[in-house]
């Protein structure tokens, strides 16, 4: 067999195109498009102390940012410590995601990710009871994260995702409660944030 150089340009081009295709989904650049919603609209969003907009916020923010602060008068200020997702770390491409600071103590609110780079921040009104806040937070988070599976369960009038939602609202599981949830889903136009806001109104305390 002779040392081959004939195939090199073809293979190199093929390899390069393959590599570029493979990397197409890896975010590049120094900023990233992020959506931040909060339970009260008009809260100020700041990145590392610099005001970048108000909720509901969708905009580019710097990937090397450390801290996002959400604040509104009458509510406790909530801070999200930004982190790098494992995928981001592996590809050397730091993106926002993963752990969003501690959500166990609920000292000033809580935040969660419900879709790629989309976050819901629950600000705690000053003087709110912690138990009440926790119940609303748990219910809304569950509803927003599992909305698609809840809609699939609604088509069968049964299922583990629907059952858990009904449990969190403190309603009894019956045809009536299933119908109420279906109505809320239709009313929300399939939007996760809207659905979350409608569902918490069902909470029986």
């Amino acid at each position, binding site marked *: *067999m002779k040392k081959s150089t004939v195939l090199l340009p073809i293979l190199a081009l093929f390899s390069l195109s393959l590599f570029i295709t493979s990397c197409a989904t890896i975010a590049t650049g120094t900023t990233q498009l992020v959506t931040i919603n909060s339970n009260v609209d008009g809260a100020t969003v700041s990145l590392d102390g610099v005001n970048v907009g108000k909720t509901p916020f969708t905009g580019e923010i710097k990937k090397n940012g450390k801290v996002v602060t959400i604040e509104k008068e009458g509510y406790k200020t909530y801070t999200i410590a*930004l982190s*790098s997702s494992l995928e981001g770390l592996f590809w050397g491409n730091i*993106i926002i995601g993963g752990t969003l600071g501690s959500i166990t103590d609920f000292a000033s609110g809580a935040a969660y990710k419900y879709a790629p780079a989309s976050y819901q921040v629950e600000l705690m009104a000053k003087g709110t009871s912690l138990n009440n806040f926790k119940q609303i937070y748990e219910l809304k988070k569950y509803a927003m994260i599992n909305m698609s599976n809840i*809609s699939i369960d609604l088509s069968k009038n049964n299922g583990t*995702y629907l059952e858990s939602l009904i*449990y969190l609202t403190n309603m009894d599981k019956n045809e009536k409660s299933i119908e109420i949830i279906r109505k809320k889903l239709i009313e929300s*136009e*399939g939007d996760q944030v809207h659905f979350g806001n409608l569902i918490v109104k069902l909470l029986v305390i």
Partner: protein
Amino acid sequence: MRLNFAGRIIKIVFVILLIYYPILSARPQNSIGNNNLDDTTTTNQEWKLFYNDHAFNKLYLVFAGPYPASPTSSFGHIFVLLEPQKDRPFLLWDAMDFSANITNVGAFDFFLKGLFGGLDGQYKEISFYEKLREYTFIESRSLWLFPIQLDKQESKNFLFRFFNLSNKIYPYRFTNRNCASQIYNLIKLSIDDSFKQENQLVFPHTIINGLKNRISDPIFIESIDNLLKDNVKKITLTTCNSENKLFEYNNANDAILLNTLEWKYSQDHDHLTTEENTKLQNLRKLVSLSSNNEYNNFKSYPRVFDIHPTMLAGCGLRMSNDDGMEYLLMYRFGIHEYFENCNVYPKNDFLNLLKIDLGIKKNKIQINRLMLFNQTSLQPASFVSNYLSWKLGAGIEQKDEFMDRQLSSGIFTGFGYTVALLDDKITLSLLINAEPVYLEKFGLAFLTGHEIITIWNLSDRIKWMNCLKGTMKNIATLQIYYYVENNLAFEISKNIMLLLSTKFTEYDKFYNIKVNFYIN
């Protein structure tokens, strides 16, 4: 001069690591402690509230399969799930784990600290549905739930220990202070106060063996990948390359389409576009109003946890045109290779922690390969999953393809793409390789090249792997050194495999016959 400079760099890196490691490891290290619950501590009000909230009937040890996209998740993840005494849907049960806190940790620091120490770890509590979302949906990893038998006092001990640990920071390390080792220690100490804590790399095998008197057969929860497989298997790159076709194909069942698209978007994008969001929103409405939907979006059932031992040994013969015959000896400590059968690890993910191939000829022993870490992930991409293939290895490897056959030591990496054909029976991968190595006869070199790997899963017992690899020693000369390797593996019994292989380089031809067997 070049060699001297590179040599100095290696020395500097080595010295930095030597200094860095003890500094990081010298931080105070909290241990789990050896005290189980006793009556004197039960007066604490916070503990009473915690116990009231978390008292459980049964504890499940949960194993999440490996995540091919990240080498740090190659061994899978371990956490526990609590079946509460209070009646609560299982999606809302509490899950508890030990994991690294990666907030504000950069990529370089993550790997360095993960390997040598310096990452902070925490015992955390989270709802099971969030774990389910993270593992079975976003990362497409199946879950194995092993019930663990604990009596009332042991269950209380477990909760008490977790309660005491949950607000503190502990050192985290990939190798010996990871999710598996810490959870294992927690369970063992809850059973027996005098248990000596294990601080070593823990495989799922080790944990299951260590708890074998307490553990029962597992329940398996399907990943989204598996749930959709039967429904979307016709939608591969060969039959469908656009979303419109997916809509046409799936119009009979919008529920499947909703799950498929949501999963696909979560894989593909950093942020959903308005169009994608609108599609999902419309589908959610449509699906909630539809009826007679047969699609099952959650599947769990009992399944045998079929995993092979980590230690594999082999012996055989190698013939070559130039060198005649040599005897071969092999030892492997690792998780999975292409010729092994197992339903726990993805069939296209291969991982060895240590692999040594020796050749013995005329009473002289030589190293043909010594890999300290070697991982290859060849997950096929499709319309719904866009995995990148990659490999990463460190060690010594014989370069048969050069005219002057020689050892190369260093790092072996590659990135590329894999496609599946014939219902996953065949996978075809193309990798672009980069290998910064020290060549025995040429010194330091940056080898580049490409590799086409075809794996045929002919049956559960017969597998064939073909590899065509081209390596460039010097980009300026554009000279590529090729070899073609064929490996045919037969599973003779559950513990014994026969491997036949050929390797043709431009200068020589090699023929191997080997028998591999597991060491339990």
